[in-house]
């Protein structure tokens, strides 16, 4: 929600804190602030209003009221505290089909207006909110919504058929297959014809039963205000939050009006909105109100809630006096009636989120300041149970890592498998894996060529993870363990099985159980859930040290290039020393030097090293690496090594 600082000042007055101070106040007492931007002359604060406060804070008055609650001040001008004085009219009639879904409907007739551009101050405020000014009437409806949170819509009364001396509004469910034409959405040129399912609520011209808008969501072109309009009807109604949400989401329309209904702005708001808009329009477009019709079928009042100071302190970890709590609650606009050991509280009518005791306790905590809560570490107690899956996973990890296996976590999604998702992220991620084997094979394929780069002799990996299957009437899952080996870069080799057999034997020894398994091309997978459930219940975890904060280095996605160098050196020469000499001459492209071979003959030692080159920026060529190797050979010779 974008908020114009100067607009807040209308309500807070000259004592308004600066935009920066408001950011700080809201951050620690109410909402996160995304930032402050200067648009034209205006400072605009981007406030992340929380879902539970979207009933009352998606408007300037709401944010101003919030600031006043925090600072303990009173608004100098509060549109929601003004007495509503609306003249009645029988020129407008309204017929509502479902009074639960549309519990309130108000409409005002304003005549003698002149449609023109809005005054500059109003245009500037709308522009600061990222809105495009249209004309003074349409702008006024938007302005009042951003001011107090009630969506409104204006119709040209002369284009709206008047039957038997009155304008007849209707609110009814759509018929299945009925089409309504909606005004083009922001950024789009063309109006949108929408085919309805029959669950949506329509506002209609009752005289002809013509849909004129999708209730709570969007209006149509029907009786649109233009430069010749002199007589208007302004509608402000209340529509059910869930229904609005279903309709809006179903059609993929999320606009400012629907957002406010979805979050259940108060149904007490419409007459206040009428009062505001009549004042604004008669001010900027002239004319006069001919009266308002207000149908209110389902009143919904905030409940009386018992709030116990002792409970509040117990939950917040504070020790506030009851009088302090009373003063905080009153600051927020809550009606507080004091009793011996509790208050009876009623939230301000514009807030629909004040329904149970903790709602009020939260207000006490955040307005007082959550920074006043002191830390208490809970008493140490003994563990009541151990997680066998974790305990035995750790044993498996220890065993396999000792044998040179690295642990991977691969995607739970598959292109094809038994369990399908209803809404996949991508066509190759439409299913859930039923086994880990495929992921392990992919991992081996992908990594088998990296042995030189990683300085390993072969590729060994394992994964412990959840796999999914269909059951009679649900989706079942268990934890699987899979491991695999690849000694050659070009694919499976029967020799790979030897390492897998050894690993399984080591696991059987470690876990003290025989594990039924079937090795397929040096990959094996077992049902780990079944296995650990058959093992003894663990009694204590092995201690774990916190790992050091190593600095991870992003790896290059480009292929590595390998060069070997062999040389005779004097017997007794330190291999590390030779490696260091080579490293010093191999330059930045050399990412690894591995000592691969050594033998002695006739008082001399032959050493072989493998140099791996890789660039972060591109695929290396011989032209880049050859000169580096020439330097390495030269430096080796200069050091007295006899290269071969």
């Amino acid at each position, binding site marked *: 929600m974008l908020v114009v600082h100067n607009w807040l000042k209308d309500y807070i007055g000259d004592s308004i804190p600066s935009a920066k101070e408001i950011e700080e106040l809201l951050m620690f007492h109410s909402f996160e602030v995304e930032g402050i931007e200067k648009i034209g002359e205006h400072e605009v604060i981007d406030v992340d209003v929380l879902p539970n406060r979207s009933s009352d804070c998606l408007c300037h008055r709401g944010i101003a009221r919030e600031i006043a609650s925090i600072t303990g001040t009173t608004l100098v001008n509060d549109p929601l505290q003004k007495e509503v004085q609306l003249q009645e009219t029988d020129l407008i009639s309204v017929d509502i089909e479902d009074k639960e879904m549309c519990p309130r409907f108000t409409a005002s007739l304003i005549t003698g207006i002149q449609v023109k551009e809005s005054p500059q101050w109003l245009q500037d405020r709308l522009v600061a909110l990222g809105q495009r000014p249209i004309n003074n009437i349409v702008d006024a409806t938007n302005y009042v919504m951003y001011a107090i949170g009630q969506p409104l819509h204006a119709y040209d009364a002369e284009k709206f058929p008047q039957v038997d001396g009155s304008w007849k509004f209707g609110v009814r469910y759509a018929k299945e297959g009925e089409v309504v034409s909606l005004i083009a959405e922001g950024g789009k040129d063309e109006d949108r014809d929408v085919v309805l399912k029959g669950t949506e609520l329509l506002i209609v011209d009752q005289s002809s039963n013509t849909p004129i808008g999708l209730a709570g969501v969007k209006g149509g072109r029907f009786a649109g205000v233009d430069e010749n309009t002199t007589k208007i009807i302004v509608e402000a109604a209340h529509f059910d939050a869930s229904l609005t949400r279903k309709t809006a989401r179903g059609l993929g329309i999320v606009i400012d009006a629907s957002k406010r209904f979805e979050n259940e702005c108060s149904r007490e708001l419409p007459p206040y909105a009428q009062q505001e808009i009549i004042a604004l329009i008669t001010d900027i477009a002239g004319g006069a109100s001919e009266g308002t019709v207000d149908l209110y079928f389902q009143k919904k009042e905030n409940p009386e809630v018992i709030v116990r100071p002792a409970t509040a302190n117990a939950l917040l970890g504070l020790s506030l006096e009851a009088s302090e709590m009373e003063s905080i609650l009153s600051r927020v606009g809550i009606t507080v009636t004091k009793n011996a050991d509790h208050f009876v509280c009623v939230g301000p009518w514009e807030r629909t989120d004040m329904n149970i005791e903790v709602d009020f306790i939260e207000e006490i905590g955040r307005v007082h300041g959550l920074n006043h809560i002191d830390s208490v570490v809970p008493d140490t107690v003994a563990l009541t149970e151990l997680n066998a899956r974790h305990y035995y996973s750790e044993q498996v990890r220890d065993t396999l890592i000792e044998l040179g296996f690295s642990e991977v976590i691969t995607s739970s999604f598959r292109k094809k498998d038994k369990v399908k998702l209803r809404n996949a992220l991508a066509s190759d991620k439409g299913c859930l894996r039923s086994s880990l084997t495929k992921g392990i094979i992919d991992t081996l394929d992908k990594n088998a060529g990296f042995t030189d780069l990683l300085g390993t002799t072969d590729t060994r990996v394992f994964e412990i993870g959840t796999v999914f299957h269909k059951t009679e009437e649900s989706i079942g899952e268990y934890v699987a363990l899979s491991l695999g080996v690849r000694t050659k870069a070009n694919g499976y080799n029967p020799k790979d099985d030897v390492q897998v057999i050894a690993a399984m034997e080591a696991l059987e020894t470690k876990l003290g159980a025989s594990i039924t398994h079937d090795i397929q091309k040096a990959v094996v997978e077992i049902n780990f859930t079944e296995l650990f459930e058959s093992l003894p219940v663990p009694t204590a975890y092995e201690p774990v040290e916190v790992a050091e904060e*190593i600095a991870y280095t992003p790896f290059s996605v480009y292929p590595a290039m390998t060069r070997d160098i062999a040389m005779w050196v004097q017997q007794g020469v330190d291999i590390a020393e030779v490696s260091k000499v080579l490293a010093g001459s191999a330059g930045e492209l050399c990412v690894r030097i591995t000592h691969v071979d050594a033998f002695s003959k006739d008082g001399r030692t032959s050493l072989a090293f493998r140099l791996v080159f890789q660039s972060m920026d591109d695929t290396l060529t011989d032209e880049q690496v050859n000169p580096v190797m020439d330097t390495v050979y030269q430096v080796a010779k200069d050091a007295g090594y006899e290269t071969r």
Partner: protein
Amino acid sequence: MQKGHQHPLTQMISEINSIFAEIGFVFAEGPEAETEHYNFDQLNFPPDHPARDMQDTFFLRSEDTKEPMVLRTHTSPVQARFMESHEPPVRVIVPGKVFRNEATDATHEAQFHQLEGLYVDKGVHMGHLKGTIEHFFSKFFAGEVEVRFRPSFFPFVEPGVEIDMMLKESDSKLANKWIEVMGAGMVHPNVLKASGIDPEVYSGFAFGMGIDRLAVMKYGINDVRDLYTGDLRFVNQF
């Protein structure tokens, strides 16, 4: 034989478990394919409530399941499952994989790991939440950590808070700045009631954070997707 490498996520989960086990938090788990009942209803997400928009959910096909099911969007359903099957006092952590149907980039993966924490007993208050989180981070980052609360909203807690942490007097690159780390709050009475616990007798706190994000903080990982590709050029650095 050269040793292999442990994946940083399971390494961190082991560390997390070790730190919390010392103060009596049980390592609990639950299914990754979860019922909507546990993923949403039991956690005070009313049907059609905007709060469900906060999470982009993967749904399983209705023809496959008698009860509506999703890939869990958070580890929080385990709170409800554990409270249903255990009498308070309850102290649990739930590290595990969760899923969100959202476009992936260097800071978002459709699958990631979360750490849930829950402590329900007589007299549990927000000070315990603060103390527990400070205790955890001080151990995890091996230094003195201070945390602060900011108001927030999650359907399953009230009051709800966002937690920032600051590592003090340390050489770490994380030191001396506030870092947003998790959402938390006091367990909503509706959640306690739905799990058969009387909120008039018991209270509790719950917290949830991304373990992947912890990995980003601790190791400076530049792309969270690397955690799930099985690429040893990544794993072997740990």
